[in-house]
C-alpha cells in the first residue's frame, strides 16, 4: 500500500474535524473521499499533504511515518478547488514551479511543461497570463502544475466544483482518463457522487469526521453501509422488507435482490425506484407532477406511508394530481441498506 492512514484524528481547537480514520490508497489507485460539506474530508486531505498536524494517528507512505516530514518534502501534489495559480507568473512559469524547486535543468523543464500542457489540452498556452484564463483553463493549468514534478501522490480538493455544469462533466471525464493514462496515485475530495464515481476506483464515504464506508463505486451505490450513507447517496424513502430466496417483499411492493441472505432487511429507495405500472401491487394518489427532461416525476400519497414518496412515469400520458395510480418497484433504484453480511448485491 502506498498511502496508509492509521487511526488519524485532526482537531480544530477542541473540535474533532477528523476522527479515527483508517484508509489506504494502493499504488496507481484513485480513491475519492465523498461527503457533504463540513464532514472533514478537506481537513483529512490537508493532513495528508502536511498542512494540518494530526492530533493522533499517523499518515504513512510505504510504511514510513510522515509525521516529521514537512509539506515541501513529501512529494505530494495538491490541486485546490479554485486553482490557486500564482497570479504574478505566466502559465509556463506556474507549471514549471515545482520543477524549479527540485532543480530540474532548464531544457528538460521546458520539455516537461510542453508535454503537460499538451496532456491537459492547453498546448500553446505557455506565455499566457494566468489571470486571463477561464475557470476551466485555470483548473487545467493547476492540474498540470501539480503533475509536473511527478508527485508520488496527487491530492485533489474539490477540483471541479468551482466550474459550471457542462465544464465540470467534461473535465471530470478528461481528468479520469488523464489519471488512468499517467498511472497517477490520487486522493480526490468531492461532495458530488457523479464526480466521485467517474474518477475513483474506490470511494470512501465520510460523515462528521468519520469514514462510514469504503468500497468500489457500484458497491457503495447498491449497498450503502447505513441509512445516512444511503441518504447522502440519494435514497429518500426507506422501507423494511423481508428477503426470501432472492425476493424482497415490502409494503411498497416486491423486488428481486440477488445473493441476499434471507431475513429482515432495510431497502433504500431512490427517485427512480417506483415506476408507474398498471400491474403494480401498490396504489396511491398523485399529489404533484413535475416534468423532467425525459420523464415525469410524481409525488404520491400511499396509505400506510408516513411521507409522500417519489415515483416516475413516462412523459406521454403522465397522470396528474388527484389521479389514482398503481406502482411497481424497479430493482435499479433500490439499494440494500445495512452492514455487509456476505457477498450481496441488488437486482440485476
Amino acid at each position: 500500500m502506498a498511502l496508509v492512514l492509521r487511526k488519524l484524528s485532526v482537531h480544530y481547537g477542541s473540535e474533532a474535524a477528523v476522527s479515527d480514520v483508517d484508509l489506504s490508497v494502493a499504488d496507481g489507485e484513485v480513491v475519492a473521499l465523498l461527503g457533504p460539506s463540513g464532514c472533514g474530508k478537506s481537513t483529512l486531505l490537508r493532513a495528508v499533504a502536511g498542512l494540518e498536524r494530526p492530533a493522533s494517528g499517523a499518515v504513512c507512505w510505504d510504511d514510513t511515518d510522515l509525521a516529521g516530514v514537512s509539506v515541501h518534502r513529501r512529494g505530494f501534489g495538491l490541486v485546490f478547488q479554485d486553482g490557486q495559480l500564482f497570479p504574478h507568473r505566466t502559465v509556463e512559469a506556474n507549471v514549471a514551479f515545482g520543477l524549479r524547486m527540485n532543480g530540474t535543468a532548464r531544457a528538460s523543464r521546458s520539455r516537461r511543461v510542453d508535454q503537460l500542457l499538451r496532456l491537459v489540452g492547453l498546448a500553446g498556452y505557455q506565455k499566457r497570463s494566468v489571470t486571463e484564463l477561464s475557470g476551466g483553463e485555470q483548473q487545467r493549468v493547476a492540474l498540470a502544475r501539480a503533475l509536473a514534478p511527478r508527485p508520488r501522490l496527487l491530492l485533489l480538493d474539490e477540483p471541479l466544483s468551482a466550474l459550471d455544469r457542462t465544464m465540470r462533466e467534461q473535465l471530470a471525464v478528461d481528468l479520469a482518463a488523464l489519471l488512468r493514462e499517467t498511472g497517477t496515485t490520487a486522493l480526490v475530495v468531492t461532495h458530488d457522487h457523479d464526480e466521485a464515481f467517474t474518477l475513483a476506483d474506490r470511494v470512501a464515504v465520510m460523515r462528521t469526521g468519520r469514514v462510514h464506508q469504503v468500497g468500489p463505486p457500484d458497491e457503495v451505490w447498491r449497498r450503502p453501509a447505513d441509512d445516512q450513507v444511503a441518504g447522502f447517496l440519494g435514497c429518500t424513502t426507506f422501507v423494511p422488507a423481508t428477503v426470501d430466496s432472492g425476493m424482497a417483499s415490502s409494503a411498497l411492493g416486491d423486488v428481486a435482490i440477488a445473493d441476499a441472505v434471507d431475513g429482515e432487511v432495510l431497502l433504500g429507495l431512490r427517485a427512480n425506484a417506483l415506476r408507474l405500472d398498471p400491474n403494480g401491487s401498490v396504489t396511491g394518489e398523485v399529489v404533484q407532477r413535475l416534468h423532467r427532461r425525459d420523464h415525469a416525476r410524481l409525488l404520491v400519497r400511499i396509505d400506510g406511508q408516513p411521507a409522500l414518496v417519489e415515483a416516475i412515469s413516462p412523459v406521454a400520458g403522465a397522470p396528474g394530481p388527484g389521479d389514482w395510480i398503481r406502482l411497481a418497484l424497479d430493482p435499479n433504484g433500490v439499494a440494500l441498506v445495512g452492514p455487509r453480511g456476505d457477498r450481496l448485491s441488488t437486482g440485476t
Partner: protein
Amino acid sequence: MSPLALVGLLPLVFLGLFFAWPVASIVGLGLTSTSRPGSAVLDVLTDSETLRLVGFTLGQAAAATVIAVLAGMPLAFVLARCKLPGIGLLRVAVVVPFVLPTVVVGLAFRVLMPAGGVAPIVLANAFFNIAVVARTVGGLWAHTDRRGEEAARALGASRWRAFVSVVLPAIAPAILSAAAVAFLFCATSFGVVLMLGGGQYRTLETEIYLRTVELFDLPGAAALSMLQVTTVVAVLIIGAVTRRRKETALGMRRHREIARRPVGGEWVVVGVASAVVVALTVPVVSLVARSLSNGFAGYVALAGHGDQATLQVSGLDAVWNSVRAASDATVLAMLLGVLSAVVLSQLSRSGALIGEVFDLALMLPLGVSAVTLGFGYLVALGSLPLDLRASPLLVPFAQALVITPLVVRTVLPVLRAVDERLRQAAGTLGAGRLRVWREIDLGLAGRALVAAAGFGYVVALGEFGATSFLARPDAPTLPVVIATLIARPGELNNDMAYAACVVLMLVTVAAVAAIEGFRASSVGEF
C-alpha cells in the same frame, strides 16, 4: 513563532530607542523640570492661552478635514468607478499634493493668498489631505459590489437615494478612517502653519517649536507635547478600530468592480472632480510662476550661499544633503517597515491582540508630531554617553521614523491579501518556508515594495518638522534651506527659496509618476 518574534523585535527596539524614549523624555521633562513637579504642566494646562491654542488647532484641523472629505469624495468616485481617458494622469495628479514638502505648499499658498489669515492655513492643510481621502475611499469603493446599488435602483431608489442608503454605508469605514488620518495630519501639521501663520496664528505644533527655539520655555513646550501626544493616541485608537472594520470589509470583496463610462448625473460628479483637480493645480502653478518672476535668477543663485551669505552651505550642497539623508532614511525605513509588515501579516493571520498593539505602536510616529520627535531627540540623546546629537545619522533616523508607517501601510495590505493557499500550493510543489516567502510573498509584493520605497523617499526628501530641529546648521537639507531663505530679507533669498521649492516639487512629481507606473495593487491606503 520564535524566529518571527526575533524578527519583530528589531523594529520594536528601534522604535523604543528612537521614538518611545525621546517622547517619554519630553513627558518626563514636562513633569519634573521645575521645583514643584508637575507644576509646569498644570500652569500650561490651566492657562486660558492654551485653551485658545487647542481650540484653534482642533478647529482648523476640523475645517480642513471637512473640506478634504468634501473635495476628495468626487475624486474617489471618479478613480473607483469611471472609465475615462486620462484617469492614469488623474491618479498621479491626486497623489502629488500629499507628498509635496510642507514647506513648498506653505510657500505656494503664501504666493496665492498674500493677505494671510486663517483661510490659507485651512486650505493648505486640506490641499494635502484630499489625496488621503480620494485614495483611501476610492480603494474601498472600487471593491464595493455594484449590484447592491443596482438592486436599490430596481426597487425604485433615485441615484442619490441609492448612494445615500447603500453605497455610503458600505464605504463609511474608509471615509471615517481617511477622515481620522487627515484630521491627525492637519492637527499636527507644522511647516504649513509655520509658513502661513507666523507668530500670529499658532497651533500646538508650532507653539511647541516657538517655545523651544525662540522662548527657551522647555517645560512649557514639554507640557504642550504631552497634551498633543495624548490627543493623538486617542485619535489613533479610533482610527485603528475603523481601519480594522475596513480591512474585514475588504476581505469579503476581492474582486475589483469594472470601471465604466459615467452616465447621466454622474457627469456632474465628474465635473466637480475636475474642478477639484484644477483647484489643486492652482497653488502649484502660481509657485512656478513666482519662481520665474525674475527670470532664472533664483535658480542660478542656488549654486551660491544667498544674499549676504544667509546660508552656511550652497543650495547645491543642501540638495546633496537632502538626497543623502533621504536615501539613508529610506533604506532604514524599508528594513524596519518590511520586517514589521511581515510580522504583522503573520500575527494578524493568527488573530492575536498583540498584532493590533504592534500595529498601533507602528502608527504612532505617523501621528505624534515631528516637532515633538525632534525636540525629544535633543532632550533624550543628550543623556547618552556618546552624544548622538551632533551625529549626521540623527536626521535620517528621525526621517525613517516618519516614513516607516507609510512603508508598513503600503506593504501590509498586499501581504495580508496573499491567499494562504498560494503559499501552501508552493509548499506542496517543494518550496521550503524561505523559498515560499521569496517566490510568493516577495513576488506578489514586489511592486508594492518599490512603491513604498519611492513614497518613503519622497516624503523623507520633503520632511521638515523633525529635520528642522535636528539638522546641523552646516548640513541643512533643502526644506530647511527654503525656510531659512524665506525668513530672511532680500529679493535674491526669496527668489532662491521659490526656485528651490520648484526643484523639490519637480523631484517629487517625477518620483510619484514613476511609482504610479509601478503600482500593482489598489488596496494600499495612501
